[in-house]
């Protein structure tokens, strides 16, 4: 093979495929070792890191859940005291929502979206690196505080006045509020990256109607993040201001209002559920057609359902406040809107069922988890319809019925598809297959364990068992069911253990994966498993919604990107017509340093308001370093 010397402004059409691969590897690669790990901006490395970290938090949160089940297995349990228990359930909720569920969904998007839209890196790659470090900082803050017996103990919702200056003692509530800041900054950053990647970096020809449903769902999720997270930032920041500098946002004695906090929290908190659920729906929409071996039925209705869910999700926050004494007519409005969100959810389920019905399903592990998802999520959705009814809700609000309901929605509705998605995309990410046999065992343990753990909680709720109690008296008729629940939780934990063992074991021991092991239709399967650092040697051109099915042997490609520097192809929003070649950032240490400076400022601000003044100086320095002009011409149209 003859080697052509690389001149500047040389294009990918000027060299042979082997040399193209070498040159692209040279410009896109991450240096080995610690320096490379700290400076990388490769979405695949950061995405992997995000996914692994989120699963570590899942395991930690799961251990807390088992601790709570040990305490509640019988009346007057003596495993954990009241103070520790309140920290444990607060940690469990905060950890699962802010450190596991949202980040793991965004992490899947960080890894997969650029591959699925056929581009070489996510938009704003340095922001992406920064978002991971900030997320890690928030996680370390929360768990570090818990290890020091300073973990928050006011619930994952931190209602005032319990979390306010008068009743929330020590620094526990501040740590909760600042952990929110960390995770929201990171979530907002990723959301912006996803939106821009989907809008501007799609492969040529990937019109709006050809965007994979997984990408659509991530796009809608990203918009929900952008619109919902500011509300919780306001809530947690005003809470910290009340605590730290004596403002009175939530002090009724000084004209503040405790319900204002609840409105702000749930204006975020309800869309939050869909921020977790919509990506899971996208995973289902990727798995179902692949294993049903036919195109998804009702692509357009599903896209519209995703968008409708996103919009409606902002209109139902009040159903978390049905027993706070709001006007009845207003409550009726929120009953109607909460019921209405079941319509787009139902529509998607009908479309998946139709796809399976009309296709020829092969019941591999990913589809098994999707089937488990439909079985359990429909229960969670229907109990959601129940709590949307004001009179119904007055009996079950803040009881174990609600605990059962949202675990059916979050585990059944999001974690089942997520595990299916891990089995599905693991070969792409690692180049190895996970075990079909272990996967089946893990599925049945998780499925049976989950239902035996959470279904009895519905009954406990009807029987009057409130949430967030560290113990109950022997005369209450709850002991038997609680014991069943606690024992079943062990089965569920064993199932998760099997899954993790499979995932770890397959890293080295799994069968080597081909490029497209499941014969799926979308672009990420068009490249090698695992993908090269530059994702695609040439940018694919898309002519249908299922490119790998409609042209199975060769894909048309776009040519003309430079090979002496990192470039991405920018395309138009609607039709994805090529518009420009954008230079993409190099690896950089600055996002890591900026994250450290930001973390120091945020943690310090728990103890002194002056941290915001002095702490912002290093933040400014690192940001200047980050954005220092490189003298590279930006876009070339």
């Amino acid at each position, binding site marked *: 093979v003859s080697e052509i010397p690389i001149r500047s402004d040389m294009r990918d059409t000027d060299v042979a495929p082997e040399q193209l691969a070498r040159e692209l590897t040279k410009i896109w690669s991450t240096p080995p070792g610690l320096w490379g790990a700290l400076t990388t901006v490769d979405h695949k490395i950061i995405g992997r890191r995000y996914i692994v970290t989120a699963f570590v938090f899942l395991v930690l949160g799961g251990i807390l859940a088992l601790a709570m089940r040990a305490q509640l297995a019988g009346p007057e349990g003596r495993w954990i005291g*009241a103070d520790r228990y*309140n920290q444990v359930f607060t940690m469990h909720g905060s950890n699962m929502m802010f450190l596991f569920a949202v980040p793991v969904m965004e992490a899947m998007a960080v890894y997969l979206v650029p591959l699925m839209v056929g581009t070489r890196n996510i938009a704003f790659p340095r922001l992406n690196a920064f978002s991971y470090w900030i997320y890690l900082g928030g996680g370390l803050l929360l768990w570090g505080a818990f290890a020091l017996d300073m973990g928050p103990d*006011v619930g994952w919702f931190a*209602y005032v*006045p*319990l979390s306010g200056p*008068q*009743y929330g003692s020590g620094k526990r509530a501040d740590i909760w509020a600042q952990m929110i800041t960390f995770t929201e900054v990171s979530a907002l950053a990723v959301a912006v990256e996803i939106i821009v990647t989907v809008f501007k970096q799609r492969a040529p020809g990937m019109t709006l109607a050809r965007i994979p449903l997984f990408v659509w769902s991530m796009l809608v999720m990203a918009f929900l993040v952008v619109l919902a997270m500011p509300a919780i930032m306001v809530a947690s920041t005003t809470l910290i201001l009340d605590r730290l500098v004596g403002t009175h946002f939530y002090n*009724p004695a000084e004209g503040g*209002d*405790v*319900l204002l906090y609840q409105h702000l929290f749930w204006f975020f908190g309800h869309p939050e559920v869909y921020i977790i659920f919509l990506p899971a729906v996208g995973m289902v929409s990727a798995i179902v057609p692949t294993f049903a071996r036919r195109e998804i*039925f*009702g692509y357009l209705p599903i896209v519209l359902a995703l968008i409708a869910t996103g919009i409606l999700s902002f209109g139902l926050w009040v159903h978390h406040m049905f*027993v*706070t*004494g709001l006007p009845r007519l207003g409550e*009726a409005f929120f*009953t*109607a809107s909460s*019921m209405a969100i*079941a*319509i787009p959810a*139902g*529509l998607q389920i*009908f479309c998946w*069922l*139709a796809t*399976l019905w009309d296709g*020829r399903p092969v019941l591999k592990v990913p589809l098994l988890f999707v*089937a488990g998802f*439909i*079985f359990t999520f*429909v*229960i969670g959705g*229907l109990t959601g*319809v*129940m709590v*949307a*009814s*004001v*009179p*119904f809700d*007055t*009996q079950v*609000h*803040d*009881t174990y019925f609600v605990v059962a309901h949202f675990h059916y929605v979050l585990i059944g509705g999001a974690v089942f598809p997520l595990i299916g998605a891990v089995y599905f995309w693991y070969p792409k990410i690692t180049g190895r297959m996970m075990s079909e046999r272990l996967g089946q065992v893990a599925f049945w343990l998780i499925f049976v364990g989950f239902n035996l753990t959470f279904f009895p909680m519905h*009954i406990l709720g*009807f*029987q*009057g068992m*409130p949430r967030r*109690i*560290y*113990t109950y*008296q022997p*005369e*209450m*008729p709850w002991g038997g069911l609680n014991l069943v629940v606690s024992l079943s939780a062990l089965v569920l934990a064993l199932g998760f253990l099997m899954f993790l063992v499979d995932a770890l074991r397959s890293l080295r021991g799994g069968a080597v994966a081909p490029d497209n092991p499941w014969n799926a239709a979308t672009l990420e399967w068009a490249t090698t498993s695992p993908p090269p650092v530059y994702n695609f040697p040439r940018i694919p051109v898309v002519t249908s919604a299922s490119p790998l099915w409609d042209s199975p042997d060769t894909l048309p490609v776009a040519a003309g990107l430079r090979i002496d520097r990192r470039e991405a192809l920018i395309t138009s929003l609607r039709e994805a017509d090529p518009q420009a070649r954008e230079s993409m950032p190099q690896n950089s240490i600055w996002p890591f340093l900026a994250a450290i400076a930001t973390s120091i400022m945020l943690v310090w601000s728990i103890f002194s308001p002056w941290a915001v003044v002095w702490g912002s100086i290093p933040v400014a320095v690192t940001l200047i370093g980050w954005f220092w002009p490189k003298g590279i011409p930006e876009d070339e149209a």
Partner: protein
Amino acid sequence: MRARLHRLAPFTLALTCTACSGSQSALDPAGLPALTLLHLMLGIMLTCAIVWAGVVAVLARALSRRRAPRPHSVSRERRMTIVISAALVATVAILSAFTAASFIATRALDGADTDALLIRVRGFQWWWEVNYFDPKTGETFATANEIHVPVGRAVRLQLAAADVIHSFWVPSLAGKQDLIPGRDNELTFVAQRAGVYRGQCAEFCGLQHARMALAVVALPAEAFAQWLETQRADAVAPSSEELRRGHDVFVAKACGACHTIRGTQAAGMTGPDLTHVGGRRTIAAGVFETTRGSLAAWIADPQTIKPGNNMPMVPLEPDELRAVSAYMASLK
């Protein structure tokens, strides 16, 4: 109505216990609106169960069918569109029916009964202050953690919070309603049969949220009138040497700084009114049955029994402790 409840019993998986502490279950209603709520809940749940069974049946069939690949067919796609549209219409119809039913049931929750018995309940960390108020005489008295009501008459609770948010919930009688600082909420119910109905705080309110129970005691009208009579009266005077000594210790030590015993010098407002504490079923918001022994244990070391509560440990000699607990138990 009882017969109807019995018919429903197996369906509702009711495992309720109506022993010592009283029932605390939404499946075991003893009044309104709890009964209305149960009917609504059963109707919605039954409908949902049918919907779920249908979805799972279709899923099972779709996954178990085995057949050869077929070419794409427009007529099949159209059939599927029709089926899905029909399912969607059914979804909308069911949800609309649920919405209408819950709207109607909600209106029934606000029974504006002018004859209602008015009771003020204030939530504290972690106990309930209960104030009876007679609008005719203007007379008022306080008790704690136990609400006596007459059977068959509407009761209107005015709910307020002294510190953080609490939630009043006695599931056998009514759904819950929050007690929120800076706001006043109301809850109306009617107990339809005599009995003891347990409830507990349903909004997380801090360290001892789990130990914030209360009881509603529904009495026939005459018994209720009698109870009112007893409660209005001042505390009974100590009738023996030991009780007198207990009274003196109570007044001389820190006890009276927080607690009121009407008819004595003890007039503190921080803790529960103890004028008739010996007549209540439990102490410390449902922690113990009221006995002389449990009173002694509580007074001796409240922070071990219910850590974090506002009652300090007041150092007492053994004979003082004996006397005070005997005196407390005598305050029927």
